[in-house]
């Protein structure tokens, strides 16, 4: 059995900015909306068909350490709120291949950001959810 354990190598770029060393969590949700195609005569619900193409409804959620230093998290993220951007995520920093695919979400929308998320004695983190956009997978 082969599984994947994430230790230190997953890579993430947001708007072409490498934020790997600020990121602690990343989740890519690849969703095609479920369209019901059940018709008279069917004895069970059916969804989708080879001739039915539904819309993608993707999201990417990332958790980053907050940093207000130049060119760090806050400087990179703040101006992206309310617009579309592109994210690229890979399981490891190695070259893109069939065993290290690259996932690109183009046209993802960032609707909100928490510039200050402060708790006494704790590292500040932010959680971002990018919605929409077209997800493509590359293996070369």
């Amino acid at each position, binding site marked *: 059995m082969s599984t994947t354990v994430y230790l230190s190598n997953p890579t993430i*770029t947001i*708007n*072409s*900015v*490498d*934020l790997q060393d600020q990121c602690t969590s990343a989740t890519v949700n690849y969703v095609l909306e479920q369209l019901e195609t059940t018709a008279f005569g069917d004895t069970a619900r059916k969804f989708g068909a080879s001739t039915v193409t539904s819309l993608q409804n993707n999201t990417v959620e990332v958790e980053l350490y907050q940093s207000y230093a*130049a*060119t760090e998290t806050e*400087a*990179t993220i703040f*101006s*992206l709120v309310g*617009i*579309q*951007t*592109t994210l*690229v995520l890979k399981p490891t920093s190695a070259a893109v291949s069939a065993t290290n695919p690259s996932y*690109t979400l*183009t*046209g*993802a929308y960032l609707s909100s950001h928490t510039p200050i998320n402060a708790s006494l004695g704790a590292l500040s983190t932010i959680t971002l959810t990018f919605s929409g956009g077209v997800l493509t997978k590359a293996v070369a």
Partner: protein
Amino acid sequence: MDYEVTSNRLNGHSRGDIIREADLGDLTTDLVFLVEAGHLSPLKVKKSAKTIDTDAKD
């Protein structure tokens, strides 16, 4: 327009590299966001102080 990379976070590029917008692939956003965030600095075109005579010499 050319840009100088001014951070070490720009994917595939190092600080000091001179790049063009096309070098960053499909960004979706305008480069102004990378300039505002300090990752890029637009390079100004320097005008030559002297004129250059390009006519062939006799």
